[in-house]
């Protein structure tokens, strides 16, 4: 065959020419690059969402705000989160970044937005991890109460449980991302199975009611619906955390977007099913979902299957531990990324030589995650009250980060020359919805019983502003580096290293 009648493609294959402009080492070197398969990446998102815990507890919280608009609120939250997922996937299909959302925001809107998003993510992941540790402690207490009545409410016991669960998380996470991902997935799948068994039993036992009796909203005001939607959103948050494993995923541009998309869809389906089952159950038995403090246990005992309550308490404990693992994983990756960029102390950017995990970032993360809830408990709150506070902080952090990334989406696409109308419109709608819902939620919390959450958020915001001011003075070069992502090395391209 002569050289003339060969395609450029086959010339490139048989005689690859070197590609210039590639770094010999990715800026993210040190992590276990390209090691995680689809299942492990999926485990991260599923664990962070903790769908079984949310499916069991969130419908009652939403019903307390949105009343007969409960299903509609879940539907609105699902649509909003699907739009956010679509916007986030515009980035995850194009870059693998341990810093996830804040890297994306920095690439679209610049340094300040990146810094703000990083702060919002630390608040989001950190407080969800605290929520999860408290939840694990709370449901362990519920389990213990079944055997010994006097156990509940003992302050030192809660502190001990927080320390134990925090220690377990650190141990698993320190040892390596693959082990922690697998542990997370097994735990979460087991508790989803328990929830589905319960839903199945309830649907079979509860007399059939007219679908429209529980599904159609009657006399729900706009603000009530918005508040319900915000709480429903907290059931979804965490789905994007697979993006923090972009560097470690084997085929990041395929597995990360797929994980994010399907986690939102599957979680939405589970929540609608669970909310409908609980509404229909209370409609049939009488009473109200909104006023029940442990609705699933109530329904189980009324349907004559009280033993499921025991199973559920155990499952929820596990689900919360899985959630703590996944949230700490994400928190650790964000701290690591900030450390690599030099914005946070450099030590946070170190990796363990043998386990290849960001062990210092993880240790600091776990320490704070245990300290804050312990302080709340020492100030005299019971775990349930403390959970109510931290979940508001977590939701605010997540929603701020989501909104910033949505705003960044069209700018990023234009910057790399791949702007199209579809993603821009979706991101715009999502950003508007998030800002409206979050604003309304904060407005309600200021005057409500959870003003402390707003106070903590204000402290976090002031802290972020101060940190930014310090960085502007002493770490100008580091700030300019914000938004590092994994870069292809010569061994990824045709014609690179042999």
């Amino acid at each position, binding site marked *: *065959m002569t050289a003339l*009648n*060969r*395609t*450029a*493609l*086959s*010339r*490139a*294959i*048989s005689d*690859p*020419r070197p*590609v*210039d*402009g*590639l*770094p010999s080492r990715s800026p993210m070197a040190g992590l276990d690059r390209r090691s995680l398969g689809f299942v492990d990446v999926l485990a991260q998102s599923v664990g962070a969402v903790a769908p079984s815990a949310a499916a069991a507890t969130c419908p009652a919280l939403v019903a307390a705000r949105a009343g007969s608009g409960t299903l509609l609120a879940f539907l609105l939250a699902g649509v909003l989160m699907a739009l956010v997922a679509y916007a986030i996937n515009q980035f995850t*299909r*194009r*870059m693998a970044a341990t810093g996830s959302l804040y890297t994306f925001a920095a*690439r679209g809107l610049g340094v300040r937005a990146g810094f703000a998003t990083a702060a919002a993510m630390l608040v989001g992941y950190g407080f969800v991890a605290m929520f999860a540790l408290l939840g694990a402690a709370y449901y362990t207490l519920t389990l213990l109460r079944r055997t010994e009545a006097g156990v509940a409410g003992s302050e030192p016991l809660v502190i001990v449980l927080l320390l134990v669960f925090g220690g377990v998380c650190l141990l698993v996470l320190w040892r390596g991302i693959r082990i922690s991902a697998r542990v997370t997935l097994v735990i979460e799948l087991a508790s989803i199975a328990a929830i589905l068994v319960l839903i199945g039993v309830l649907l079979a036992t509860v007399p059939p009611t007219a679908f429209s009796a529980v599904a159609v909203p009657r006399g729900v005001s706009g603000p009530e619906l918005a508040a319900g939607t915000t709480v429903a959103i907290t059931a979804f948050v965490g789905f994007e955390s697979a993006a923090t494993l972009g560097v470690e995923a084997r*085929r990041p*541009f*395929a597995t990360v*977007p797929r994980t994010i998309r399907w986690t939102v869809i599957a979680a939405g389906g589970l929540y609608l099913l669970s909310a409908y089952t609980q509404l229909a159950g209370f409609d049939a038995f009488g009473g109200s979902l909104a006023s029940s403090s442990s609705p699933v246990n109530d329904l189980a005992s009324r349907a004559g299957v009280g033993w499921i309550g025991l199973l559920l308490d155990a499952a929820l404990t596990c689900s919360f531990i899985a959630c703590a693992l996944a949230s700490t994983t994400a928190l650790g990756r964000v701290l690591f990324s900030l450390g690599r960029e030099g914005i946070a102390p450099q030590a946070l950017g170190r990796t363990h030589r043998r386990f290849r995990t960001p062990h210092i970032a993880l240790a600091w993360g776990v320490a704070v995650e245990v300290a804050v809830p312990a302080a709340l408990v020492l100030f005299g709150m019971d775990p349930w009250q403390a959970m109510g506070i931290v979940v508001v902080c977590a939701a605010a952090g997540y929603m701020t980060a989501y909104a910033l990334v949505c705003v960044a989406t069209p700018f990023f696409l234009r910057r*790399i*020359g*791949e702007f*199209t109308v*579809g993603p821009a419109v979706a991101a715009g709608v999502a950003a508007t919805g998030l800002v409206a819902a979050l604003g309304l939620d904060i407005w309600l919390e200021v005057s409500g019983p959870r003003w402390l959450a707003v106070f903590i958020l204000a402290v976090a915001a002031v802290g972020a502003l101060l940190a930014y001011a310090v960085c502007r003075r002493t770490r100008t070069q580091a700030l300019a580096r914000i938004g590092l992502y994994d*870069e*292809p090395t010569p*061994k*990824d*391209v*045709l*014609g*690179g290293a042999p």
Partner: protein
Amino acid sequence: MTAVSELSGRQPGAIHSALAVLEAVAHAGPGVTAQQLSDRLGLPRATTYRLINLLVEDEYLVRMPDLRGFALGRKVAELADVAHAQDAALSVRETLADLRGRIRGGVHLAVFRHGHVVPVDVDPDFPLSDPRRITTDLSVSALGRLLLAERAARTIPSPTRYTTQEGELTPGFGCLAIPVRGKDDRLVGGLALAMPAARLADRDGLLALVADSAVRIGPLIDD
């Protein structure tokens, strides 16, 4: 492979376009942007971006550190067979075009598959007069007669040099077909020259014109 499962049989065009994208990146060299690719290929922007991102997902393309440009991924080397087939198809097309430039008449290439004549490259200036009969009745066309002659030759070993037909399909016109042989001298196809019957008289002259081409095409279409 996921890319294959997502591109269903209903979108054969997508595979063509994907290969065209890879070809264009190879041609342009590392650093070519999505917009440039869209312009060069004449594909709509959104389609190009979707294709590119699918190829990046499967690591046939790699996004350069500036996030704007693209280079061929290491995985492209796995496409060596595809590239070889593309080369072969290109060579066959060029050989036929060359022949068509030198012969006043139609030049058709057909392969034999499961005892049938399958036209694979019909001269656009001289369409087949009755494609259905040619593909179903071996005895009416010169190409079909090649296959019949080859079967007969199994009992009387004497390689067929050519076959003809005159006026079977169109009065006054005829066809001369010569065998295209692959490895082990197996008959894999036929090259047919269609022209007015009168001009078919100079058999040796015509055979001399096409013999080289048939030899060159043989290994390229033998699969």
